[in-house]
């Protein structure tokens, strides 16, 4: 496989966040929700290596705990997007008649709703915002992108001779779709997934910041940013860490997506 710098950096950054989330299940220096007024607003120092916030909460512990939600949101949102979008896109590219048009127009309509609006709607319908409503909202709004990408890739594959060859041996349609088309569009879907992952994390941070996601007891990076707002000029430290980690994670996902594209796209690949 071809080496790719963006793939290496992207995978390392995303891997780092995954390690943080894993570690948080076994070890955190402090309870991320333990209020300690005696040691509030400390600069980075031992034992609070990233300092403490206005309630005396240890920022490093909260970064660790926040990594869980961050990854959870990414996985669930991308999962919803891919599980709903890829089959629909594949059918839209492969089938004939009214159904593909229906799918594409519906995708256009969902595209018109920003994830933010969708999250507000869901939160209102639910009575209050939660991580689940946020994840579902982000997931739904990422569906159209998956539909379009999967359909475009399917259209490219469908016109190749091996699909015609499969039809000459009377291969059933669902076998053609599952065994011949799906593996061929998998690289494109993978790239779209990693880009969507970054977007989902960003969207969740924005929703947390607006208070439309997790309740205050759940630690998220977006929530930490929100809390840091009033101390921005006196203690920039509070906003710096969660902001930095959100930025690094999203950057990592985008680089991972670019790297995967470079490695998997046959048009960019060297002749074997």
């Amino acid at each position, binding site marked *: 496989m071809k080496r790719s710098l963006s793939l290496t950096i992207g995978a390392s950054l995303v891997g780092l966040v995954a390690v943080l989330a894993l570690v948080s299940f076994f070890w955190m220096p402090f309870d991320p929700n333990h209020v300690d007024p005696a040691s509030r607003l400390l600069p980075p120092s031992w034992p609070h290596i990233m300092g403490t916030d206005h309630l005396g909460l240890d920022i490093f512990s909260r970064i660790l705990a926040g990594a869980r939600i961050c990854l959870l949101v990414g996985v669930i949102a991308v999962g919803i997007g891919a599980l709903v979008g890829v089959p629909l896109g594949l059918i839209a590219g492969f089938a004939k008649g009214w159904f593909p048009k229906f799918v594409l127009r519906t995708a256009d309509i969902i595209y018109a709703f920003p994830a933010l609006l969708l999250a507000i709607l869901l939160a209102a319908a639910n009575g209050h915002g939660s991580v689940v409503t946020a994840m579902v909202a982000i997931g739904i709004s990422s569906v159209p992108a998956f539909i379009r990408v999967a359909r475009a890739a399917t259209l490219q594959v469908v016109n190749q001779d091996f699909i015609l060859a499969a039809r*000459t041996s009377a291969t059933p349609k669902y*076998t053609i779709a599952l065994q011949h088309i799906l593996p061929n569009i998998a690289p494109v879907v993978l790239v779209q997934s990693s880009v969507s992952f970054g977007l989902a994390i960003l969207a969740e941070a924005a929703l947390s910041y607006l208070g439309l996601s997790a309740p205050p007891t759940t630690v998220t990076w977006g929530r930490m940013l929100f809390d840091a707002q009033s101390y921005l000029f006196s203690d920039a430290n509070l906003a710096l860490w969660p902001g930095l980690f959100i930025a690094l994670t999203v950057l990592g996902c985008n680089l991972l997506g670019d790297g995967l594209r470079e490695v998997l796209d046959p048009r960019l690949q060297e002749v074997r």
Partner: protein
Amino acid sequence: MTPLLEVSGLNLAFGQRRTPALRDVSFTLDGGQRLGIIGESGSGKSVTALAVMGLLPDNAFLSGSIRWRGQELVGLGDAAYSKLRGDDMTMVFQEPMTALDPTMPVGLQVAEVLRLHRARSKDAARFGASAEQIVDNARNRVLEMLTEVGLPDPGRAALKYPHQLSGGQRQRVMIAMALINRPALVICDEPTTALDVTVQAKVLRLIDYELRAVQAASLFISHDLAVVSQVCDEVLVLYHGEVVERGHVAQVLGAPEHPYTKGLVATARLDLVTPGERLPVIEDFLSSAQLAGGGAANG
């Protein structure tokens, strides 16, 4: 006796403007017989093959009659057609790189064709074989077929992906896929055009041998007169969607009657051209009226 395949008065047009692609094409093919179809690009060779397979695109308008062992195929439903495809009639494609799925080991692709056929013919129920036995039989049959088409080290080759094989090897896999179910008709759509000359000769010999082994009839599409004369008994010359000449290979290529065929034969015989002389082109043999007619048909 009813012929295996009987095509009569076949007309084909494409799209809203009904651009004609075939006009009044008729031919018959008996069991085991090989018919070469020659003609230049766009003369309707490949669409004839697709019409017989029932795989024309949606914007095609087909009229006339295609009879398979007396059964009319024009207008036949997809489900009924599926019973013929892959079992009774199969196809070898021109470009083996694009005709094999790049994400699947070639052995599996051959096995899939076999498995679909078995599912239709319900071997399992008839013999009361267990699932393991069927899988085992299928594996042996695939390996046997890959050996027969001359793939070196078939056990290992079966696990390779298409890009790991050479062009000639890929075409051998295609031939294995087309012949594993012992069809009555194999349509070869320029099977050697994408191969270099030495490999071409080997693959042609293989096709010749395999067709004889399963006693399959063949529609052999090519623009290469030498290839057709090597493999086929009879030849059909298509020009702008019309049959201009038909007969035994030796007769048509030895003493062509239609000016277009004369042109084809002359342009293929470069050894007859004296150095320094202008090479013959097909237009030399066609009258201006025929050229104009051809042009109109194309537009």
